[in-house]
């Protein structure tokens, strides 16, 4: 068996989360469970990216590793949009790919990687029934606009939405900065890591399993993640 050994609960999905920091990962674990509405397992594989554009560079080898070396059902990836193009419904048109949209680029990188992968090994005799990711690793990609702290403030500050950010991009007057978002969440733009993790989990836990507000206020970035996750049909 390849390292790392994956000890799994047969009825739970096995996921890998690729994020920029332990704080992001802690928040995503909570949010993914809210969307899936069921517990899941994470692989004993600590994936981390150094932010954009590293995520795009490391995604193909990560997908290949998950495919060949693990029994992961899915991979969750969330990146900050920073000042890049925000994903919109127009980008969802069949065959469309916006060259500066990070969701479009990550989906493209994922698609290109899995396209030529051979099928995974068939389950051994007596193994539990095939899961959703047995043929290939599923993907769920989200975009935090402009940073994940905006998601943390969802429901606390009605002025912080994707629509407000898009309007600001169009007018050339951003409604807030990443630094301001940090101040609002942490009370400083230099939070310690443990405090960042604590605040991240506190804020996303406020939604208590109901992510409709997040999907309403962040329809493209969080909505895309939620739609991807719900599309994973559990076997």
């Amino acid at each position, binding site marked *: 068996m390849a390292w790392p050994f994956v000890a799994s609960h047969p009825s739970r999905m096995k996921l890998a989360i690729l994020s920029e*920091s332990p704080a992001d990962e802690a928040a995503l674990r909570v949010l993914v469970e809210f969307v899936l509405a069921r517990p899941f397992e994470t692989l004993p594989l600590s994936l*981390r990216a*150094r*932010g954009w*554009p*590293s995520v795009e560079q490391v995604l193909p080898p990560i997908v290949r590793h998950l495919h060949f070396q693990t029994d992961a059902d899915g991979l969750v990836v969330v990146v900050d949009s*920073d*000042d*890049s193009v925000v994903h919109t419904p127009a980008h969802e048109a069949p065959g469309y790919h916006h060259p500066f949209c990070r969701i479009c680029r990550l989906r493209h990188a994922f698609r290109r990687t899995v396209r030529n992968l051979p099928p995974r090994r068939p389950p051994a005799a007596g193994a539990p029934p095939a899961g959703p990711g047995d043929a290939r690793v599923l993907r769920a990609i989200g975009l935090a606009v402009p940073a994940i702290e905006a998601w943390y403030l969802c429901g606390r500050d009605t002025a912080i939405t994707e629509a407000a950010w898009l309007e600001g991009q169009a007018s050339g007057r951003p409604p807030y900065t*990443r*630094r301001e978002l*940090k101040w609002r969440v942490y009370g*400083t*733009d*230099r*939070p*310690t*890591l*443990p*405090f960042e993790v604590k605040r991240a989990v506190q804020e996303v836990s406020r939604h208590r399993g109901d992510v409709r507000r997040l999907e309403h206020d962040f329809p493209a970035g969080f909505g895309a993640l939620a739609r991807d996750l719900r599309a994973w049909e559990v076997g």
Partner: protein
Amino acid sequence: MIAAIEFRNFKALRSAAVKLEPFNLLVGPSGSGKTSLIQALLRLRALAGLPAEHVVGLPAAEAGAAQITFHFQPPYQELHVVLHCAADEIVCNRLAVEHPPGLEGERLWAELRARLLGIRAFLFDHYAMGVPPREAEDKELNSNAGNLAAVLAAWRTSAPAAYAHLEGDFRRIMPEFAGLDFRALAGDHVELVVRPADGSMPLSADVLSQGTLHLLAILALAHAPQPPTIVCLEEADRGTHPRMLREVRDALYRLSHPAASGEKRAPVQVIATTHSPYLLDLYKDHPEEVVLAHRRGRQAGFTRLAELPDVRELLKEAHLGDLWYSGLLGGVPEEPGEEPNIE
């Protein structure tokens, strides 16, 4: 505390200036002036302990002689301190002070001088940290942290709250360890030992990894009950895994921005050097805290990252560390055959 430093003929810093923030990360090739800047601060500390020349109007530099002028943040903005020497002297050994007239000026200088005596520079040496030191009397970390065991052992008794925070941070960052302990050895020496979380045999400092000892030394700086007024730390990334560099940054921010960590003490100005693009990456949101040291021919100088006109645009497309490595920002070694651009 120090707002800016101007250099004239000080080693490779022939005509250079640098503005300083509460936190400063210096990057650049060897010989670009990073260590010279720290040496200038140490010289300032040394001379601040001696009688100074009180002047009206800053002394003019002798032709070819080294001169270093220090400017300060409020409330010391009216004071200017100059280290200087004659043209035939190698080391700046004269200190001139210009301060406002009268008792108030003298009081400000006395206060500033006391703070300048608190400047400390560190270059941690894990071999030195592995040798049991004598029990500490001054409870202050040496420049190579060779007395780490003695300092921590002393703090455990004299500053239990600071010690508890330090040990708590150590356990959180390195969960394979359950805590620290100390063994008294012959001749008043004390040995640092670390208790593994799995209950196995405690490990003495001489068998700990370089990274573990460096982390402990950085935590000792960050949690010092009476920290220096200015901390200069060379090779801040030394022995540290790239993913753990965030902890190094947080520890140094604890000094320079104590309120961000919930502390109420006075800020410590921090000047750290690194060659790690990964550590540099962590400052993309604070370009004002990054100083690029560069060298062309025999001249060295400094540029603040925030002063580069297109830095925000460049950061949209690439990591700060990668931009630095690429040479777009400067602060990289000269290539063989490159024409020195001496102005």
